[in-house]
């Protein structure tokens, strides 16, 4: 395992995952994963399908109870105080939806309230306009395009200015324009001091927005480093050289370390 999983100074850490174990029946989905995320950092979790990325995020979100290990968000133990931990988190789930009978305006009002934000009609309209959905105020979530749904989901995830934002495959299914827009928003959030953990299958995305990435497979963390650091460390690895086509890329490192077999 990489030596770059650790960060000195508890105050510098916004997320600490220590020896996390998640099991579904007899199957171990996450097997002793340990990593930390710094304040103001964009941290990527990469892995094939079923590697344990979403299970790791679900444990951080408090959606499932891990069988072992510890998750600390901004100094708060998620298992001991899940409500306080969730108040510090902004979350965009991989597959989430909102009540289909509610308009966008009503959805924003609902989630603002759930995060303790008292908002006026004008506040809501301003927020929605900020993400380019000003003309869609009275529409239902289902009637929005994929890119618009993603923007609304992100707006709701950051409505309470969380100390840590969790994005589970945020650009999955988006067109290039919408994807670039999201990257710009991630950059803006980082510039404002936000910390972000995202899962992705896109190596291009990981290189574009992540300060550090972790590669996870079969529930275990294989390496943690900057994208450039990972390439530099593995450019002479025979497993990577076997799959490389020309200059070694992050994707070559990823496939070299996790194998070429297709995962379902």
């Amino acid at each position, binding site marked *: 395992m990489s030596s770059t999983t650790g960060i000195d100074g508890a105050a510098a850490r916004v997320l600490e995952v220590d020896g996390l174990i998640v099991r579904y029946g007899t199957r171990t989905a996450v097997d002793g994963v340990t990593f930390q995320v710094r304040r103001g950092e964009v941290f990527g979790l990469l892995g094939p399908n079923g590697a344990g990325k979403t299970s790791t995020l679900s444990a951080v979100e408090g*959606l499932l109870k891990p069988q072992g290990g510890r998750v600390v968000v901004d100094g708060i133990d998620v298992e001991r105080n899940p409500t306080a931990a969730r*108040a510090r988190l902004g979350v965009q*789930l991989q*597959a*989430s939806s*909102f*009540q289909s009978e509610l308009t966008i305006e009503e959805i924003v009002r609902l989630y603002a309230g759930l995060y303790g934000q008292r908002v006026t009609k004008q506040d809501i309209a301003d927020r929605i306009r900020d993400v380019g959905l000003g003309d869609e105020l009275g529409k239902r979530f289902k009637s929005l395009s994929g890119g618009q749904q993603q923007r609304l989901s992100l707006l709701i995830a950051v409505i309470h200015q969380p100390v840590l934002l969790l994005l589970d495959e945020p650009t999955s299914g988006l067109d290039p324009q919408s994807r670039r827009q999201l990257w710009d928003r991630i950059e803006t959030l980082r510039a404002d001091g936000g910390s972000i953990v995202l899962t992705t299958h896109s190596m291009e995305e990981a290189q574009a927005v992540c300060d550090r990435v972790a590669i996870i497979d079969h529930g275990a963390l294989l390496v943690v480093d900057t994208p450039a650091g990972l390439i530099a460390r593995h450019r002479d690895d025979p497993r990577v050289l076997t799959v490389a086509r020309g200059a070694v890329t992050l994707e070559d490192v990823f496939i070299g370390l996790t194998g070429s077999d297709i995962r379902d």
Partner: protein
Amino acid sequence: MTDATSTGARPAIGLIRSSLLRADATVLLRSGRTLLLNIAVPILYLVITNLHLGHKGRGFTYGSTGFTIGLALTVGLMSSSLMGYATTITHDRDAGVFQRLRVTPAPTWAIMASRLLVQIAADLIMTVVVVIVGGIIHRTTFGAGDYLLLVCVSIAGGAMFLAIAQAVVGLVRSAAVVDAIGRMFYIVFLLTGLLGSSGILGSTAQEVAGWSPVGAVTNLYSGVLDLAQWSWTDSYGLIAVIGYTVIGAVVGIRWFRWDSR
């Protein structure tokens, strides 16, 4: 905008509750299916039974005004719970609505309690509307005390059918299967209550029907509309309603899963 949680403080439960209630009430009001099941079905039942029975006064035997209105109210409670509530819960579970709500600081009990409270409120509105319409159709007037007692029975009966619906969605994950079970229970409960209470199937069936969900609640409605005639049958109805509610709630809470996977 007030940043109550920008520093990560726990948001006030009052604001969480009111936000959930407002959203759930809006969803219910906009749901044509739920409104149809809640209000239109019992009124349709009243109209149909009136065509056959006409006005017979307040005798509270089978086919009487009290029994007919009581059964109409029971049908309303059962429809909205077994088909409306159960279907909505499984749909939202499949769509990931609950998972999205669960990653907020809102306690899970508040998420579910809001749904149940809104459904009970809808049941109470249905009660008042159906009793008014039933009174007009059957040319009977009800006093404030009658309304109060009917509302109390609707709270108990609504809670019982919601508990049964909760048990169904707790034990079954598939939305299609929940829908099918809801319909099946609806028919079985209705036939048991209706045919059993009629005495057509004999006195034993009639007694058993009194312990069935529909029979128990219908007896309670009839009982509170004629307190002077309150009998052991009505008391058994109350015991049955409490029993079904407790069992349904325990099963529905113990085995409920927020995620359909």
